């Protein structure tokens, strides 16, 4: 019984304990690096944020059009804040990689693989950012155009435009990361094509009179505006 206890419980526990003890310095070092990195990241963020605020960077960014770009992606909380967050995030990421590296060969391998993967990740992030910009910009353009053309459901139309562009950007980004492969792109194509074809058939068959009226009114829009409103604008 005593021997069984020794073999089944005591020895594995000892082994685990020894392994933990041998790994503890690396783990502690990694934790310390992470904590220091976190504090350094927070400090860098605060210093840059406050420094840029002091230097009136927000005003400069506004003049350079940078603020407008940030606002268009929906990230706007002040250009200084965004730059500070980005710098702090970079420090934190760097400390994370350093911490992984201190964990020994397995950690180093992870870091190596991360660096191989990094360009793809950055490209994917860039694709999503550009997609977000395009979605916000084109969505707003569609909203304003639909309002001025007095179309019913202008917000719905703008939302659909935004959603489609976001979807397209995410699918392209995922494809770049090797997630989903061509399946995602084909799925998107099938869904998008299906929606367009479905709408075309529905509009053409069920609403051919409506389609004719819509086309006629589009062609005569300028004349109709004057006719309906009466005023001469210029």
């Amino acid at each position, binding site marked *: 019984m005593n021997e069984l206890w020794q073999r089944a419980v005591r020895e594995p526990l000892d082994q685990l304990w020894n392994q933990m003890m041998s790994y503890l310095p690396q783990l502690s070092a990694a934790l310390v690096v992470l904590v220091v990195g976190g504090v350094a990241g927070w400090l860098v963020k605060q210093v840059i944020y406050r420094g840029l605020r002091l230097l009136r960077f927000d005003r400069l960014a506004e003049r350079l059009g940078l603020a407008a770009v940030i606002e268009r992606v929906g990230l706007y909380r002040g250009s200084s804040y965004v730059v500070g967050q980005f710098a702090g995030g970079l420090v934190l990421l760097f400390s994370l990689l350093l911490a992984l590296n201190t964990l020994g060969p397995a950690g180093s391998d992870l870091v190596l693989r991360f660096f191989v993967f990094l360009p793809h990740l950055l490209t994917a992030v860039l694709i999503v950012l550009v997609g977000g910009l395009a979605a916000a910009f084109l969505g707003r353009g569609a*909203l304003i155009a639909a309002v001025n053309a*007095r179309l019913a459901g*202008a917000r719905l139309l703008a939302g659909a435009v935004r959603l489609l562009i976001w979807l397209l950007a995410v699918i392209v980004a995922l494809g770049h990361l090797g997630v989903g492969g061509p399946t995602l792109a084909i799925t998107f194509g099938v869904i998008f094509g299906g929606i367009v074809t479905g709408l075309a058939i529905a509009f053409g068959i069920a609403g051919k009179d409506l389609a004719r009226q819509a086309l006629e009114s589009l062609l*005569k829009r300028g004349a109709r505006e*004057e006719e*309906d409103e009466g005023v*001469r*604008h*210029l």
Partner: protein
Amino acid sequence: MPDADILPADARQAVDKVGEADVVVGIPSYNNARTIGHVVRAVSAGLARHFSDLHCVIINSDGGSADGTPQAVLEAQVEADKLLLVRHPLHPVHRISTPYHGLPGKGSAFRTIFQAAKNLHAKACAVVDADLRSITPDWVELLVRPVLQQGFDYVAPYYRRHKYDGTITNSIVYPLTRALYATRVRQPIGGEFGLSAGLTERLLSKKVWETDVARYGVDIWMTTTALAEGFRVCQVYLGAKLHDPKDPGSDLTAMLVQVVGSLFSLMEEYEKRWKAVRGSVPAPLYGFPYAVGLEPVRVNPERMLSAFQEGCRDLEPVYASFLRPDLQAELKRLANGQPAELRLDDMLWVQLVFDFAAAFHRRTLDRKHLLESLTPLYLGWVASFVLRTQEASDDEAEQQIERLCRAYEQLKQTLVDRWEGR
């Protein structure tokens, strides 16, 4: 670009052949065969009657008309014996019809006319629209004589218009130009102008001819340049302006974007000038202000009100990105109010225009989107104006415009503050 490059080769030859001229009258055109013959006859008669001892040239600058507009210009006959001239012209009135080069638009047509006037060493240049039905020979004299005899550089038209004719001019262009540059020019984008050689040369020297000015913003650009750069400006009374309906393709939003965009761009160019002045004085007005019959205008404010309310609701997130919270709240209240009781008052309208100008300057939003989003608000102001003045005479409606102008002037400091981000 050297001067010689601006004029097409055939126009340059024609100008060289004429040599020199005292007065040049330009007629920009695009598919105006139906009306341009009448305009050319009126201009020819005016030149023969009032400037018979001067060398005069009529230049038609055409945008590639497909309806025979240039032929109509060259073939228009003036029956001299029916003009009852006191003196017969000493010199024949030359006519040149030429296509213009550059971006399509009225501005490029003007550039060709100004270049020809410069090459001809003209002392005065006038431009008149090709779609006019109410032009008389006297218009030429009224546009040219203040330049030749009284030393004015810029002669703007002053028309009698129906109270609902020219609502972009009445709601934004006239009051804002007046408040900015402290001079009252009632029709800053009238279409008919007289210019001195000095101003023509100054306009030609500006590097704007490849921008939107070359397209449709040319009228407000010329008026603003004349006012902001200290040229002598006056107005002449031309009676009623009746013209062919606008091209149906040119819709309201496009017009607003071009005109208001040009106004706001010019505010950036002349920022120091307009910030330094307050109040306004009228530009001298010449001519005899006789009463005229105006074409009736049938108005439907309900449709504009519904466009305003729907626009306010749908564009709320767009407006939230640049309008002050109190203005947003006011728009929200109006958007959800009863249409019958809805009025967008002058003070609110002026503050909205100022916030749009500031957002344009600070690039808070894409500029085209910003200007396009003005359309529903503009329709709200027009509908409110119509509801306020339905029973009013044209003169009473003009008093309402005067009150609006005073609101623009009173609130000018708000514009300065908003412009500077305060």
